[in-house]
């Protein structure tokens, strides 16, 4: 298929359709309304169904019901709406249902603002709801990557029977970029038929029950460890990260994800032109987190700079990766303010001149 200029949110919607998603449940919230709007027009064209729910609570529970029939299903929302979906996320993980949830993050807490933020990092990577569970979290930095990751998300959700979150921000949603959909895309995992789906019991098997209730503690303990084994398998097989300008030697390593990494890449280009040796490693999966890749890359630098749109969330994972091996510096904007390439350049220069305070000592 030829490249087509698409808005991020439309590309996300179309990618879902291309991946075989036929059901979408959502509730309006800025800045992601273009996704449900796209789906409301597009899904009926392919024999699918769009429902505007009465709330994100209902939308995410519709998602649960539809996923229980074995169909490919998706919802999207933004931060306050995602909070309302945390109940369903827990039940989805507990009942092992594959779904894709897109969070176009906005600034918080509370009603916050509608501009881009990365303030939902903890919520996304630390389970999102009650109980002992994880989402697999994918963070695109371009419209093309958003389209690719949404399609991969459906395969990963089906393979692990676990909710997968695509974490973006308003920039990804609004950005127009060329996108290409492959016409013969194959699943990235070997997928089994969904024999567990509750679609009517013909009588030749026990009834299929979609459920997260285990009143017997021994049984629930076994279930908890079974879920943990899946998260371990994700950690073994699904970690993704990309590096930028890391082929040449560097003194400062930037760690950033999503659109912030995009901004940092512009800063790195400029710094490199001036002969400043700087590179970046960009996590693409936020859970499982690329601890080893970050550690390996950081050990080649003399210091590390974490850039994110929060007062300091992903930096905790970088600390875990480095275990004090290198000094860590931090630059962020919050509240919907964006990091500019100039700010990053200034910060890197300041670090190299020895004038920047470390937030974590090497």
């Amino acid at each position, binding site marked *: 298929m030829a490249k087509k200029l698409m808005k991020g949110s439309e590309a996300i919607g179309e990618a879902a359709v291309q991946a075989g998603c036929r059901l979408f449940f959502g509730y309006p919230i800025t800045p992601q309304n273009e996704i449900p709007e796209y789906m409301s027009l597009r899904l009926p064209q392919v024999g699918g169904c769009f429902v505007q*729910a009465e709330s994100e609570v*209902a939308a995410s529970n519709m998602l*649960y019901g539809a996923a*229980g*029939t074995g169909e490919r299903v998706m919802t999207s929302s933004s931060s306050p709406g995602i909070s309302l979906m945390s109940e369903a996320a827990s039940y989805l993980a507990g009942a092992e249902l594959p779904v894709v949830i897109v969070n176009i993050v906005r600034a918080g807490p509370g009603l916050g603002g509608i501009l881009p933020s990365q303030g939902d990092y903890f919520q996304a990577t630390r389970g999102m709801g009650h109980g002992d569970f994880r989402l697999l979290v994918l963070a695109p930095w371009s419209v093309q990557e958003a389209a690719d990751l949404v399609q991969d998300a459906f395969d990963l959700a089906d393979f692990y029977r676990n909710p997968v979150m695509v974490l973006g921000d308003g920039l990804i949603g609004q950005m127009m970029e060329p996108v290409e959909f492959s016409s013969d895309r194959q699943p990235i995992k070997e997928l089994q038929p969904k024999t567990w789906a*509750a*679609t009517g*019991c013909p009588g030749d098997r026990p*009834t299929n029950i979609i459920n997260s209730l285990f009143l017997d503690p021994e049984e629930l303990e076994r279930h908890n460890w079974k879920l943990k084994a899946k998260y371990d398998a994700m950690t073994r097989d699904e970690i993704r990260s990309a590096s930028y300008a890391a082929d040449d030697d560097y003194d400062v390593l930037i760690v950033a994800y999503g659109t912030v990494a995009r901004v940092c890449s512009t800063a790195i280009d400029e710094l490199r032109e001036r002969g400043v040796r700087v590179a970046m490693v960009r996590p693409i999966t936020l859970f499982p987190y690329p601890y080893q890749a970050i550690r390996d890359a950081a050990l080649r630098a003399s210091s590390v700079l974490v850039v994110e749109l929060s007062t300091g969330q992903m930096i905790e994972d970088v600390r875990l990766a480095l275990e004090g091996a290198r000094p860590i510096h931090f630059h962020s904007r919050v509240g919907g303010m964006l990091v500019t390439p100039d700010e990053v350049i200034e910060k890197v220069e300041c670090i190299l001149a020895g004038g920047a305070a470390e937030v974590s000592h090497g």
Partner: protein
Amino acid sequence: MAETVFSRPGALAPVITHYCPGCTHGIIHRLIAEVIDELGIRERTVGIAPVGCAVLAYNYFTVDFQEASHGRAPAVATGIKRARPDLIVFTYQGDGDLASIGMAEIVHCANRGEKVTVVFVNNAIYGMTGGQMAPTTMPGQIATTCPLGRDVEQAGHPIRIAELLSTLRTPSFVARAAVHTPLYAVNAKEMLRRAFRYQVAGTCFSMVEVLSTCPTNWGVPPVEANRWLAQNMMPFYPLGVFKTPDGADRAPTPGAGD
């Protein structure tokens, strides 16, 4: 050979339920199972269990089931039915589940006209959590969170769900029945049959509210509980058909005394 005139419905699993002695949840299960058998829909039916005493309903039927979170069964039903319109989808919900925490989900499911069937078991109390006040608890009725009796100045009056849903413009079938005597149970089964038939025909949303007993948390023996229901609940919760998809007037249950 003797002719079998009475046996366990095929849709009812051959297991012992955990319901308390005298609780009418079990009777309602049986009526649903009989209707599923009679309509020949067992193999394409999916039930949704609530959070409440009927949380284990998925063990008591021989149909596929999904367990919903508290109050969300109508949303889960919507998801299933939209994904697979060929399936017959029913929820089974208590009054805390449906009329309190799940009020938004039930109203909007009915208002969208989802072609699913809701069996709403109104026992005027929170059974599973130990007898707290429900939105359907009667004025003056004692519960663990209104130990002096429900004070309507503080808690408002009980909510009449059948009446409330029948005000929606979207065509639907809405009825209220009871199961505390065999005769009423026969009528309740007829209401359930009609509700499922409307779904099988793809006509409309259907809900049957069934008045039910909770001897354990009402603190009365089973037989007395049946009497308590007739004396206290039935005058406030009249039985009958409240809404039909063709817009016919309300039809009270014959002999129900309202």
